[in-house]
């Protein structure tokens, strides 16, 4: 499967069967899903499942077209290989055009949830909304068209603590009209010339080192690297669920929109705290990035050098003042690429994930003192952000409003 990954070096994007794919870890995946799932005045589960069906259909349709197969068994096999390659777990798929069954082993979401919360909480509802959407999408791609199948998780290991999850797929009573992925979205024409940052970190060298790593699901369909459990997620799944979530809140009450935006920003904060905190404590970091680091501000640059290797776009710190503030440019952020393609009539800054991620990088380096290798758990997170002096951020330039790139600042509150 690695051969189907395409790296767009100038834009620092990665695609897989024509879909932009990006790395995130289960802390972010679980937090974002819970954010969307929790409010009972919107149908968050439907947002998650439908978005997964739409985005994965585009990916699977392309993959099966390229494989030039109409054999359902080959289609099932390819779909299972892709699911495992991306780090979501292992699938066993059986069925016909009348529907079928998908067994899910080592579910990223379910095992991630059990690892994070399983000792404190008993879950009563299934968690694998992405896999449910994926299951419907794979039957769509093998037997029909987008929206022709529906799926339901009837058993989930996050609830049962059993061996595998179970998803049932049936033809939709009435095919649903769903919206395909915008694929790569509205890309930047070419990278903008950015000022050379004052750092000893060589962004391009870090990019090449990380792009050379064959990061893919192991025999369990999980990607364990950088001290975290990674997934290589289609970026447009994140984009679609976050913007649909905000729209659903707005339709309930326009005043909820700001709350929703804050929650997406918080997901970016959670992501950087856990993902980058763990990355910066890993052997991988110590081998590939730490040798370049000469000052505390280089930790910020190192973080963005890694971020720009994850398929997120061209993230670069252009100014970092030690322990005070920073300015970060994102030239071709994955959120903006999607938003510009999907909402061409809207002109407000919409990179909510990045708005949370940029101050979080300052928080993990300067407040969290990640160089001292703290234990990155919920207690540490709470302690860190309940005290004063937390970094906050804002998006000061945005492609959505006509600027040449998106730009963010982080500063002490």
């Amino acid at each position: 499967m690695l051969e189907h990954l395409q790296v767009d070096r100038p834009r620092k994007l990665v695609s897989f069967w024509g879909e932009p794919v990006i790395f995130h870890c289960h802390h972010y995946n679980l937090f974002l899903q819970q954010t969307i799932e929790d409010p009972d005045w919107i149908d968050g589960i439907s947002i998650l499942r439908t978005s997964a069906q739409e985005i994965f259909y585009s990916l699977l349709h392309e993959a099966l077209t390229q494989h030039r197969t109409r054999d359902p068994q080959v289609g099932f096999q390819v779909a299972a290989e892709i699911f495992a390659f991306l780090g979501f777990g292992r699938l066993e798929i059986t069925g016909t055009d009348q529907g079928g069954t998908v067994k899910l082993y080592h579910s990223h979401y379910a095992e991630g949830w059990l690892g994070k919360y399983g000792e404190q909480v008993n879950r009563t509802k299934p968690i694998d909304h992405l896999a449910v959407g994926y299951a419907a999408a794979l039957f769509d791609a093998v037997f029909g068209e987008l929206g022709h199948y529906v799926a339901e998780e009837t058993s989930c290991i996050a609830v049962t603590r059993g061996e595998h999850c179970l998803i049932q797929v049936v033809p939709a009573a009435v095919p649903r009209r769903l919206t395909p992925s915008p694929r790569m979205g509205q890309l930047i024409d070419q990278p903008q010339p950015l000022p050379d940052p004052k750092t000893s970190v060589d962004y391009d060298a870090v990019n090449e080192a990380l792009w050379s790593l064959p990061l893919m699901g192991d025999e369990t369909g999980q990607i364990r690297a950088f001290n975290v459990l990674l997934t290589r997620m289609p970026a447009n799944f994140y984009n679609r669920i976050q913007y649909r979530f905000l729209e659903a809140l707005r339709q309930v009450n326009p005043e909820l929109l700001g709350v929703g935006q804050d929650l997406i920003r918080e997901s970016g904060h959670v992501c950087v705290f856990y993902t980058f905190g763990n990355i910066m404590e890993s052997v991988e970091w110590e081998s590939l990035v730490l040798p370049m680091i000469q000052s505390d501000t280089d930790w910020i640059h190192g973080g963005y050098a890694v971020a720009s290797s994850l398929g997120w776009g061209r993230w670069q710190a252009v100014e970092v003042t030690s322990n005070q503030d920073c300015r970060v440019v994102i030239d071709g952020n994955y959120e903006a690429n999607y938003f510009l393609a999907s909402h061409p009539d809207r002109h407000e800054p919409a990179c909510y994930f990045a708005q949370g991620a940029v101050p979080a990088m300052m928080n993990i380096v300067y407040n969290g003192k990640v160089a001292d290798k703290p234990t990155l758990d919920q207690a540490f997170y709470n302690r860190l952000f309940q005290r004063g002096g937390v970094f906050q951020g804002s998006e000061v330039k945005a492609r959505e409003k006509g600027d040449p790139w998106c730009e963010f600042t982080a500063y002490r509150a």
Partner: protein
Amino acid sequence: MSSPPTELDSFITSELPRTRRRECGLGWAVDIHLPRCLTWAELEQLTQTLGGSCRRFGNLIWLDLAGGRITASLVTPRLTLRPRDPRQEGQMTTVLQVTLSRLLFRKIGG
């Protein structure tokens, strides 16, 4: 009458300093803290002894063994062991201890 323990004996019998930590998901990782960095040749030898394959990405090395992956580095004195099955962890660390002790002792001894 038995001879006094050699430096190698004490290296083998004293436990390698290690940290066992919960990782994301349901996995465990074991960090093994070494007195010095291993060289590429030593890591190749370690892989050969343990029966696996190793791949190099700059200063980062992956040792893929039947029981799991060891992430190693040419510039940091630490190995991270991620056993596929937690029940194999004890056996893997024991074998590692003996092999590493020999590698490290030989180097230290000159």
